[in-house]
């Protein structure tokens, strides 16, 4: 019988900066603020942290440790899965604390996704990002035809999906509307106060068929952090532990080229989700809420099917009639998601799930929040999942 990670680790601290569209602060400055807040939220001191999972391409554990005054780092790794990295990092952190390689692991991520990625004349200087392994591939084989933005590449997935299963735009619109409604309850959300209903969604300008303006998420400046400890240590800390029941990750085949895939709808989560549910010992329908990575609305529909919440092609029915709104059976992205709260690579999803399961979500708190799931999606469809409980 192999060892099981189930319930061996817990999220014990969370922290975040304000989310902005326009900042003079470096991403590093914001990440350190989020990290300090997460450590304090757990009732820990920086010196208690001995594991660090920094984001890909920007900083390293040694730099984070030096800034925070941590003198002994026994564990570090970095997940290279784009936006699927943070949720995949939960699994890596759980492994480290469950086996004793580390006592308390800090996961931190931040960026100036608004101010630094596109050239802006008023942007403050920041260091360039390192080479991402997928970029040369995109530059060599998609860019020659003017298809290099995620919205363009992911539209190959979305178009085949829409045409094969007759998916109406209202299905993706239901994802947008749920996130937009939920953001109205969230003081941190960039779309709070900006109500965009189904009619406005359908009338928005097209970007790359079938994607429209509101199928795409918010470029954001901001940072978040999470601290993960062993279940045993978590019980002695400041906040109610949020236990990690199951984790999983997966990649499409091939993971580094969408065009070569024989089945465009076979995504990373198709592999990762069954592994996580098997570890957790529950079924997809047992969860109280869904924090699904929503860089684009259509990507949410694909993930609902990969999660096993509904059969392939049937997400269009699953999202109907308010089922994914907070009054429905499967509330989706109760903070507003990447679409309407902020885009910090899905860290916001982990933080919101933690708040919900602590019963500390404030205005977005659900009446029933015992078990929930978080997914990550990144690069060309890599997937990660964490199933969490109170």
């Amino acid at each position, binding site marked *: 019988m192999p060892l099981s990670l189930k319930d061996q680790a817990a999220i014990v601290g969370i922290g975040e900066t304000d989310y902005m569209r326009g900042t003079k602060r470096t991403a590093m400055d914001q990440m350190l603020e989020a990290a300090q807040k997460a450590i304090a939220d757990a009732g820990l001191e920086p010196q208690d942290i001995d594991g660090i999972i920094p984001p890909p391409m920007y900083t390293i554990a040694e730099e984070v440790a030096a800034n925070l005054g941590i003198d002994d780092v026994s564990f570090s790794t970095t997940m290279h899965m784009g936006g699927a990295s943070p949720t995949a990092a939960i699994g890596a952190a759980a492994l480290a604390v469950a086996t004793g390689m580390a006592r308390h692991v800090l996961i931190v991520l931040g960026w100036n996704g608004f101010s630094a990625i596109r050239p802006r004349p008023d942007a403050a200087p920041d260091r360039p990002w390192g080479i991402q392994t997928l970029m*040369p*591939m995109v*530059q*060599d*084989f*998609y*860019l*020659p*035809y*003017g*298809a*290099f*933005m995620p919205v*363009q590449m992911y*539209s*190959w*997935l*979305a*178009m*085949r999906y829409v*045409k*094969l299963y007759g998916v109406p735009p209202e299905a993706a619109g239901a994802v947008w509307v749920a996130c937009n409604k939920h953001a109205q309850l969230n003081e941190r959300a960039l779309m709070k106060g900006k109500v965009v209903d189904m009619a406005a969604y359908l009338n928005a*300008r*097209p*970007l*790359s*068929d*079938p*994607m429209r303006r509101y199928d795409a998420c918010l470029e954001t400046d901001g940072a978040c952090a999470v601290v993960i400890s062993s279940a045993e240590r978590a019980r002695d800390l400041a906040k109610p532990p949020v236990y990690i029941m199951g984790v999983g990750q997966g990649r499409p085949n*091939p993971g580094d*080229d*969408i*065009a*070569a*895939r*024989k089945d*465009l709808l076979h995504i990373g989560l198709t592999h990762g989700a069954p592994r996580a549910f098997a570890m957790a010992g529950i079924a997809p329908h047992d969860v109280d809420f869904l924090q699904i990575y929503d860089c684009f609305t259509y990507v949410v529909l694909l993930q609902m099917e990969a999660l096993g919440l509904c059969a392939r092609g049937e997400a269009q029915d699953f999202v109907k009639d308010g089922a994914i709104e907070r009054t429905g059976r499967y509330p989706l992205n109760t903070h507003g998601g990447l679409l309407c709260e902020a885009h910090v690579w899905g860290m916001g999803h982990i933080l919101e799930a933690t708040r919900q399961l602590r019963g500390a979500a404030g205005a977005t708190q659900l009446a029933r929040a015992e078990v929930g799931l978080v997914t990550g999606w990144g690069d060309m469809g890599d997937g990660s999942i964490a199933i969490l409980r109170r």
Partner: protein
Amino acid sequence: MSEIVPGLYPSSSDPLNRAFWEQCQDGVLRLQRCDACGLFRHIPRTTCPSCGSHAWNWTPVCGDGTVFSYTVIRENYMPPFQGLVPYVVAVVKLTEGAQLAAALLDVVPEQVTLDMPVKVVVRDVQGGKIPFFIPA
């Protein structure tokens, strides 16, 4: 002056990728074909994902295929694509089985469908020649 088409010759730093584009310059589309098992593959790989062989050759394909998926790009701020919207970029499934991304020419975006038959044409773009597909 040739017709303006949505394409750009890539300046690749990867030798294998660069070779793919260089061997299109005589107007013929060739893909890697495994010497051991005959599998055509794309994007270029060092080894055959089916049999593991390191031996391969650039081999001409017949150039016929079908549209496996596509998108109509309606917004793009990067030259030379900026002035060419809307244009269609498809995933084409070749008769040989390999699949590749390429723009479709001579099509009305609204009339493109899945499984539509297409054939390759190699056209001049800024920096060199690259393959496109047109309705068959």
